[in-house]
Each structure stands twice: as C-alpha cells, then as structure tokens.
C-alpha cells in the first residue's frame, strides 16, 4: 500500500526516546524518596522513631504532588507572574533595566494548574530552554520536576525528625515547597533572574540540597532539640536496611542527574558516569579519612554512606557540566571537606547548639554549596558543545559534525559553562557565589517565618516530652517491629473451621487432630 498514512499515538514534536528516558529517569528519582530515603532515614534513627519517619515521608511526597499540579509547578516553570522577561514559556531577555527591576520581574512564575487535557499532553515548554525544544509533553517535564520538588523537604526531614508534630510537618511541606522551592526553582531553572545571569545548577545542588540543608538547620533551631535521652542514645536500628536505602539513593541518582539534560543524548550519558564517578570517590575518601584520621581509626559503613551522599550531592550541580576529571575532583573535595566539617565544625557554634538530627546541613547543605562553587572552577565549556545535532522538517536528525554544528550555531544552548580552569575567567564562579548567597538567605528566612507561623497555629510545632519518650506508639499506635505474641486482636469474630487453641485443650486428650504420633 504505497502512500498509506501510518498513524502513531504521538505528535511529531514528541521523541519516543526522549519521552521514555525522561519518564524512566523521573521514576528513578521518585524511588530515591520512596523507598530510598524513607528506608535510609527510618533505619538510622532509633527503633522507636522508624514508623514516624516513614509516615512523614509518604505524607510529604503526597502533599508536594498535590500542590505541584494545582499551583506550584507553574511557579517554578511557568511564565513569570511579575511582568519580566519570561512570557508563555519564552524568554525575552531584558536589557538596561537595572538589576533590581530585572530581579523582581523574574522572581517567580504565576501559580496555576496543569490538569486539563492540553496541559497534560501538550508540548512541554520552559523559558530556560528555548534553543532546542523539548520532545516530550508537559506532564513528563512536570512529573520529572515533581520528584525533585518532593525529595527536597524529605531530605530535611532528617533535621527535624524525633520531635516535629505530624501535623506541623503536613503544613510545613506544601508551604515550604510553594514559597522556597517554587521561587528558587524559577530563579535558577525556570528562566528567572539567576538563570538569565548565567548561574548554573545542573540538577539541584543549590535549589535542592543546599536549600534542604539550610532549611533543615533553621527549622531544627526553631523547633528546639530532641530529648536529651534521644540525643544520647541516637543509634541506628538496622544497618542492613540502611544499605538498601542508600543503594537505591545512589543508583536512583542516575535518573536525577541523567535526566536533567532533558534529552536522551550524549550529555545524559556523561552525567550518569560523572555522577557515579564522583560518588565512588566520595565514598572512598570518607572511608579513608575515617580509617586514617578518626579517633578509632576504623573504616565505617555509615561513613561510606555519608561519603556517598557527599559525592552525589557535590556532583549534582555539575554532573553534565564537568568532564570525568572534574567529577573525580568534585567528589573527592566535597567528601574531604564535609568530613572535616562533620568531625570538627560540628563542635563549634552554631552547629554545636542546633540539633540537626541526621546532619543534613553537612552532607546536603555544605556539599551542595561546594559542588555549586566547584562548577565555577571545573565547568568545562566543551561539555555543552559535544553531542548536538539538527532536525530536518520530517523530525529526523540530520548528520552534523560537531565542529560544523558549533560553527553554525555557536553551541546548542542559550547558556555557557565557563569554569575558571578552562577559561581563566572567574565570572562563572562569581555567578555561582551570588546564587548560593541568595538560596541560603531565602531558604533560611522563609523557613524561619513558616516554622514560627506553624508554631502559632498549632500551639507548638513539637510534641510534649511524654509523647517523645515513647515515639511511634504514642503518635501512630504502630511500632516498627511488633511482637505477635504480646498483642491480642480486639473483637475478633469466630469463623467456620476455627479449632480450639492448643492451650485450651484439656490435658490427656491426645494430640490435636491431624498431628501424627512421632
């Protein structure tokens, strides 16, 4: 049948490879939260807090998604609400308006839902990405971005667990996600001020990890410490399950960083390998420092997990913007510096006076900051130029040599990566620094206000000491490892086939039916 029309269930702008990888990557990132982070945190707290951690993880994940599709996705990735340079997903660079006007007009997107059929299945657009159009629908981008938005408050649950009320958590998560995450995501990713200025954050070293570290620290400070006894006896309940959670976190990061080029292309592959490489270096540096410099001079498994997180977090802002050598440097430096901070800075104010339960300020806050700054040093301009092609009108990739492409297009992005090591210019480093200062300031300020407000509304955001003594059982009526022998079901009804229990059998009546004499 010559000339027959073959229908396909997707439009011409959609690329099945891109769409597939983006949805798979998003699912991987989702698995980092549930079960990855949920299991990791629930295993490294005391047994009496495990259920509470799990419940807050599942609630937090759910709350972010509901807020995300109703209003906050558009705040991060929609058109600006304040009349600046981003309109309907297209960026119109403002010039000569002064930085104050430029900043506030490109501050946050206009809230809105993404639930009608066109919003769900129409082509994804983002002001940050006008050079090469996306080849997947809005919901692919929105879900991919959701799993990032979701894991961020779940990360700083590690700072406030062991005393925050479940109700306070359920208020904090959507509010924080709206006012902190929505704003920072727009500023750095959605085409807002810092994106236009050239600050880079590949997958969220600033927007996610540094913000989580700072917010957790401030929230822990406002909330007050856990019980003295809980701080004295704060030992993990299951290192084997901690390994399961940590492992899911590591491999899930392949989606975290591998998905952020938004195309199933060469940079995605490089980002995945860079991520694993930095992480491997992070693990071994922390283990080596434990073995050589810690007081007991022993390599520790939970040290390896800390080093793993430092490597993962450090490479997050850089993953597709550095080469493999840069990845090695980033992983090793982040792990070493955070190891020193973890062991020494923690004894100095204000760190010694704030009960950041799982130390999120170190492994996420500091590693995120370091990674973002190191991008200003190790960012390799060539990473963006390799792997670009052009499409013909039929949507097929036309064969293009790299040099021909770069000559005709000047690169395939509206932005550049200009690390000090490769360009000799410290401008990138300066832009990284400015964005870092902003994210620290905004996360701290808004978290402080939200925690105070929630405290007023709920008459205290923490549980009473009586409840804290007991933990899971007092809060949820559940415990992580219930003893079957000690519990009796209330109001159980008898059913056909029930036999009298062995203990109620009269003595000398022989073995119960069906049991052979041995």
């Amino acid at each position, binding site marked *: 049948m010559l000339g027959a029309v073959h229908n396909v269930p997707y439009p011409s702008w959609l690329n099945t490879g891109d769409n597939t990888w983006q949805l798979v990557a998003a699912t991987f990132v989702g698995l980092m939260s549930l079960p990855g982070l949920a299991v990791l945190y629930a295993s490294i707290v005391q047994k009496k807090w495990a259920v509470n951690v799990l419940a807050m993880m599942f609630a937090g994940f759910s709350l972010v998604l509901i807020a995300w599709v109703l209003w906050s996705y558009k705040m991060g990735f929609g058109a600006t609400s304040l009349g600046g340079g981003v309109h309907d997903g297209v960026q119109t660079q403002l010039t000569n308006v002064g930085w104050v006007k430029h900043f506030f007009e490109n501050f946050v997107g206009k809230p809105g839902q993404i639930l009608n059929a066109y919003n769900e299945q129409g082509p994804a657009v983002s002001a940050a990405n006008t050079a090469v159009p996306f080849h997947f629908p809005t919901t692919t981008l929105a879900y991919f971005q959701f799993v990032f938005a979701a894991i961020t408050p779940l990360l700083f649950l590690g700072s406030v667990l062991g005393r925050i009320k479940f109700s306070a958590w359920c208020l904090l998560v959507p509010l924080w996600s709206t006012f902190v995450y929505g704003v920072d995501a727009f500023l750095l990713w959605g085409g807002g001020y810092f994106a236009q200025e050239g600050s880079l954050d590949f997958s969220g070293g600033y927007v996610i990890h540094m913000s989580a570290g700072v917010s957790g620290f401030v929230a822990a400070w406002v909330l007050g410490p856990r019980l003295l006894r809980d701080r004295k006896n704060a030992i993990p309940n299951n290192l084997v399950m901690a390994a399961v959670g940590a492992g899911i976190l590591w491999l899930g990061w392949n989606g975290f960083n591998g998905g952020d080029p938004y195309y199933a292309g060469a940079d995605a592959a490089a980002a995945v390998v860079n991520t694993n490489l930095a992480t491997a270096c992070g693990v071994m540096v922390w283990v080596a420092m434990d073995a050589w410099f810690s007081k007991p001079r022993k390599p520790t498994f939970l040290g390896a997990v800390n080093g793993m997180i430092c490597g993962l977090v450090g490479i997050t802002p850089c993953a597709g913007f550095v080469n493999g050598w840069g990845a090695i440097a980033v992983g090793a430096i982040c792990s070493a510096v955070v190891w020193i901070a973890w062991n020494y800075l923690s004894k100095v104010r204000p760190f010694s006076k704030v009960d950041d339960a799982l130390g999120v300020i170190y492994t996420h806050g500091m590693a995120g900051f370091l990674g973002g700054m190191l991008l200003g040093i190790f960012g390799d301009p060539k990473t963006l130029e390799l792997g670009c092609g052009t499409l013909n009108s039929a949507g097929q990739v036309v064969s293009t040599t790299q040099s021909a492409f770069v000559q005709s297009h000047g690169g395939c992005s509206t932005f550049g990566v200009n690390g000090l090591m490769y360009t000799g210019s410290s401008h990138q480093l300066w832009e990284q620094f400015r964005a870092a200062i902003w994210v620290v300031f905004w996360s701290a300020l808004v978290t402080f206000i939200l925690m105070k407000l929630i405290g007023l509304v709920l008459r205290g955001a923490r549980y009473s000491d009586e409840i804290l003594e007991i933990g899971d059982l007092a809060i949820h009526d*559940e415990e992580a490892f219930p003893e079957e022998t000690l519990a009796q079901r*209330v109001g159980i009804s008898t059913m056909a086939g029930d036999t009298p229990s062995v203990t109620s059998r009269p003595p000398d009546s022989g073995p119960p039916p069906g049991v052979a004499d041995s």
Partner: protein
Amino acid sequence: MKLVVAVLKPFKLDEVKEALKTAGVQGMTVTEAQGFGRQRGHTEVYRGAEYEVDFVPKIRVEILVDDEQAAEVVDAVVATAATGKIGDGKVWVVPVDTVVRVRTGERGSDAI
C-alpha cells in the same frame, strides 16, 4: 550474698547504672523484658484492626552483692529509678547460695 533484681523503666537504665557504680557495684546483668503490672498496657492499630498489648517494655537488672551492701544498692536503685508515675517498677532481694567466678574458681564473696 544477695541477688538484687530490679524491673525498671528502660530509659532509667543509664542513671541507675551510674548510681550503682558510685555505690561501688562491680558488675550487673541487664535484660530487655516485657512486663505486666499496675501500669496500663497500650493499644496498637494495624490496618484498621485494634490490638491490645498488656505488656510494656521494661529493663530487668540483676546485681550480686554482699549481704551488708544489699540495702545500700536497693536504696540507690529506688532513688534513681523513681519518677513518681505508675509503672516505675519493682526491686526485690533474694538470698544466694553459691557464687563462683568462672575464670579463677573463686567462691563466695571473693567471686562477687
């Protein structure tokens, strides 16, 4: 020789241990236990089904002492373990016939 046995609230263990060290006690044995006393148990709920758990987690401490030290040890345990709330536990003392230190074969008071 006497065996002092105490069933206590678990979170009091550290304080009790320190008080006993101060009182000159050289060693003790601790077991996690589940107890049933005048303190109410609690309810647990799994998948909407309610379960009664009459037993509450306790710590059982056993201390071997000389006769003349027993009263002092009991006082130290009671003084540190008391919160005044129901469920603080119990302490009792039983006479001990023989004690042997396994390593040396010492017997009686020398083995304590």
